[in-house]
Structure formats: C-alpha cells, structure tokens
C-alpha cells in the first residue's frame, strides 16, 4: 500500500515537472524602454512629492525651486530618451542588445 502510494506520488510529480506541451508562456524580457519608464515613474513620484510638500508649506521657495529644477532636468533627460526610442523602434530593433 505504502509502496503503491509512493509510486503514484512520484509518477504524478514527474508528469507535472516534465510534461510540457505547447509553447511556453514566459513574460517579456526587460527592455531599455521599460527601464526608462520605471525611472520616469520614480522621478515623477519624487516631483509629485516635492510639489505636494511645497504646497503643504514644508519648504521655502528657494529650496523648492532648486530641488525642482534638478528633478525636472533628470525627468527631461529620461523623457527625451523615451521619445527617441519610441520614435525609432526600427533603429533599436536593428541594434545588437542594448546595455544600460
């Protein structure tokens, strides 16, 4: 009885692990564009926080402006590269792997 049960369990496990019909459903690989979008979201989040905290009266105007301009610079650079990649998907496809 025990032997039979153990054999059945082993068979079921082997079947589950090794029987792979059809094509595998894997998620997409991470692209430079996806990475840039993540970065954009992070910088946007920081900008929104900054704006909100400024409105809440946490920083004086001068601190706010200096922090804001540096974050906006960062955001602009990311947006520009996103725009470039979105405009020229063909060119990107033509390249051999994009290291970031």
């Amino acid at each position, binding site marked *: 009885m025990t032997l039979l049960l153990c054999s059945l369990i082993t068979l079921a496990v082997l079947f589950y692990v090794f029987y792979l019909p059809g094509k595998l459903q894997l998620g997409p690989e991470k692209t430079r564009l996806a990475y*840039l979008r993540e*970065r954009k979201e992070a910088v946007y989040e920081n900008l*929104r926080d900054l704006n909100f905290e400024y409105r809440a009266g946490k920083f004086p105007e001068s601190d706010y402006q200096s922090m804001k301009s540096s974050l906006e610079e*960062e*955001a*602009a650079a990311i*947006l520009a*590269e996103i*725009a470039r990649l979105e405009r020229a998907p063909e060119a990107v496809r033509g390249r051999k792997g994009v290291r970031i």
Partner: protein
Amino acid sequence: MVLSLKRGCLLGLLCFTIFAFLGAGDEDARFSTVGHKMMCVCGCNQVLLECNHVGCRYSDRMRGELSSALSRAESDDLVLQSFVQEYGPTVLIAPTNAGFNRVAWIMPYLALVLGLTTVVLVVRAWKLRPLRAHAGAVAPVTGVEFERFREQARKETEV
C-alpha cells in the same frame, strides 16, 4: 522607525534603578538591589528575585543566603563575591567592570562612536567625490528639447 522592544526594556530597567534609588538605605531595598544583580542558578535564566520556578531547589536557598549575608552587614560587593565563589561567575547578572569583562561594556559604545564618525566622514567624502556614470545612465538634454520635455514633466506632475 521602530525600536520598541529595546527602548521599552531599557526604560524598564532604568525604572528599576529609580525604584532602587527611592528605597536607598532601606534593608528591603538593599535586598532587592543585590538580589537583582544575581541570577537564579537553576537554569531558568531568571533574575534571582524574579524566579518563581515552582519547586526551584536553588532560589529559596539563595534568597536565604542573601538575607543572612546582608544581615551580617557585609558590603554589597563582598556579598556578591561570596556568591561568585559559591556558584561561579555566571551567578552575576551582568559582566563586571574589571579585566576582560570590561570589553563587554566598551564594545557597543565603541561601535556607536566609530559608526557615527564613519558616517560623518563618509557623508563628507561623498559630498566632495565627483559622481561617476552609473549603470543605465541617461544622457542629459539641452536646448529646445530640454524645454519641451521639462514642460511635459511639469504638467504631468502637477498635484
């Protein structure tokens, strides 16, 4: 953020110290002070006066010994010393401030001081250090393109 347990416990013990101070001079308080400097040796890992280990063969006897030692008007140190001789050094609840045991007390404070100094020095060094390109760095933009994208970022992040 959360340092809860240790904060509380240290408060607890500092409170015990207050408690001890309040009754200074009083014989009961002296019993309590010295009794709280020793462990019960039965293996229950509790402070001698807090051992309620039912049927404990040690704590009752030790309390009796402590009482009689205190009544002989011996100094606290002498009493503790006699317990160490009888039950071994593990009877004392905390390391003494002598010899190698002093290292136990020094190290955490040393770590704190060294750590604070390191953080201050590191922050200063980082302030002066030029930023090297990191993985995934994005090239900065200038001119009209910069203005356009900055405006876009500004609009999209308005609260």
